[in-house]
């Protein structure tokens, strides 16, 4: 925010939103040009928190990379590690025990619940309704407790390993999850009631509208796409793991409006779907071991050279990992495409001709995860030069 670059002419003001801004939990720069509180131009600048994870992944052994990949993002950690592990298992031709797959998916769904709850809280915070923010976080803590009980950690679960999971869900835990999810459901009923309130609806309805035609052109994914009437869900369209057998235990929620309210409501409805899916899965858990009995350092030694793409529905949408092993405990190439990258391109369209007051809520409604998205920059450390990969190149690269 250099003072010299700011245009003080009031009628046309370039407002730097970020990289340090209270409504953004992560550094991203939206250069917003404003004419009398109306937005006429938006420029999104990423890469403030580019950490070179892919670079690091190519220089560590696979056992270490599993935990590195999990730390791409704190909100979709289970999704990231699930994607990565699935790719590795495909290359190494390892079939994890059935119970392990169940536990993975249950945790992924629990993570979806807490991520969606977080979004409800953040949107409430952005529209100035702190009470709803507090209530959403209050019920979110229940889910966090469950995840902590399962894996020992609240945010990064370190649950997945090649050929299974590290922690089991026993009978006591199973009963506890079912009990606590009922409580979450009750709180959610209340939250969806609050979303009908006049002042809340006023701030969300007809704001940041993304028509389905534009949404298709921009190839947005996840709840953002489903909010605009597109039926896009990897769990359904390209099922993986246990979703193949339990396709009918949940349904895709699609709303047609394409505004912020639709995107927020999608999240609420999806949490209900996740809860019912988790309950079905918990009832049908097979009684097999949770991991293959081999030590991880031995497994990574026998992973051959090979490449695989694995796609998973993360809480924010389609998440893809491209993994290329080098046959010697390490990776030759890791490429990650996160849901935020296509979604963030839609922000400019949504913000055009809106007011300043709508910037935070529109930006939050796509549930941006900048720490994920920052994998678009590729840094060539040896030559010390940075290339920013555009979407076209990224598609080719994937």
């Amino acid at each position, binding site marked *: 925010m250099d003072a010299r670059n700011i245009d003080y002419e009031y009628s046309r003001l370039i407002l730097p939103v970020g*990289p*340090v801004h*209270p409504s953004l*939990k*992560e*550094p991203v720069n939206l250069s917003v040009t404003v004419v009398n509180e109306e937005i006429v131009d938006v420029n999104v600048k990423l*890469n*403030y*928190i*580019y*950490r*070179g*994870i892919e*670079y*690091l992944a190519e*220089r560590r052994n696979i056992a270490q990379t599993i*935990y*590195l990949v999990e*730390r*791409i*993002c*704190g*909100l979709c*950690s289970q999704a990231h590690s699930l994607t990565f592990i699935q790719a590795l298992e495909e290359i190494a031709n390892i079939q994890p025990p059935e119970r392990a797959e169940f536990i993975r998916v249950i945790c992924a769904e629990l993570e979806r619940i807490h991520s969606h709850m*977080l979004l409800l*809280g953040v949107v409430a915070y952005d529209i100035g309704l702190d009470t709803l*923010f*507090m209530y959403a*976080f*209050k019920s*979110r*803590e229940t889910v*966090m407790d469950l995840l902590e009980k399962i894996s020992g*950690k*609240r*945010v*990064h679960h370190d649950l997945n390993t090649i050929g299974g999971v590290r922690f089991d869900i026993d009978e006591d835990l199973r009963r506890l999850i079912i009990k606590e999810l009922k409580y979450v459901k009750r709180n959610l009923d209340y939250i969806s009631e609050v979303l009908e309130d006049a002042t809340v609806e006023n701030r969300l309805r007809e704001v940041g509208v993304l028509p389905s035609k534009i949404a298709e052109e921009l190839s947005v994914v996840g709840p953002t796409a489903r909010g605009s009437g597109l039926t896009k869900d990897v769990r359904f369209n390209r099922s993986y793991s246990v979703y193949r057998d339990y396709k009918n235990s949940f349904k895709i929620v699609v709303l047609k409006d394409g505004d912020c309210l639709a995107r927020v409501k999608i999240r609420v409805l999806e949490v209900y779907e996740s809860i019912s899916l988790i309950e079905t899965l918990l009832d049908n858990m097979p009684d097999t071991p949770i991991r293959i009995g081999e030590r991880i350092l031995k497994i990574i030694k026998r992973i051959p050279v090979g490449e695989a793409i694995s796609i998973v529905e993360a809480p924010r949408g389609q998440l893809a990992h491209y993994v290329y092993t080098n046959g010697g405990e390490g990776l030759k190439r890791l490429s990650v495409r996160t849901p935020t990258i296509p979604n963030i391109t839609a922000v400019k369209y949504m913000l055009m001709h809106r007011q300043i007051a709508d910037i935070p809520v529109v930006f939050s409604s796509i549930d941006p*995860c900048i*720490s994920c998205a920052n994998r678009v920059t590729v*840094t060539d*450390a040896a030559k010390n030069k940075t290339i920013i990969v555009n979407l076209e190149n990224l598609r080719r690269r994937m």
Partner: protein
Amino acid sequence: MNITGKARLKSPWLFHLNTGSCNGCDIEILAALTPRYDAERFGCMLVASIRHADILLLTGPVTTQMHERLLRVYEQMPEPKAVVAVGSCAVSGGVYTGSPVVDGPADKFMPVDVYVAGCPPRPEAIVKGILEALRKFR
């Protein structure tokens, strides 16, 4: 201890800066303010402008891009000030150590008063870290 010193212990205003963290610590800082942990019992308040802050909560391993911005934010903070590094990457670089685009950890180029380790730390540990940082104001 004079009155100002006593008041300082009772009203730490926080400013949160993400310098490349994975979001985990940021969400846990938010969670520390919510009903279960309620850091406002100790007068903590998440302020929006760095000019109002007493304690800078730092997350992330300080990427090259955020390096200069972090220093600028730190300089804009009025005295007396304290810095709390939250999470393993802010404390030491964590899993991102060795990356060519990471300049951190922050204590290489600026004073850090309290280190809170954990990946991410529990909200209670963050509250403890904040209260420990207040010792500097005595």
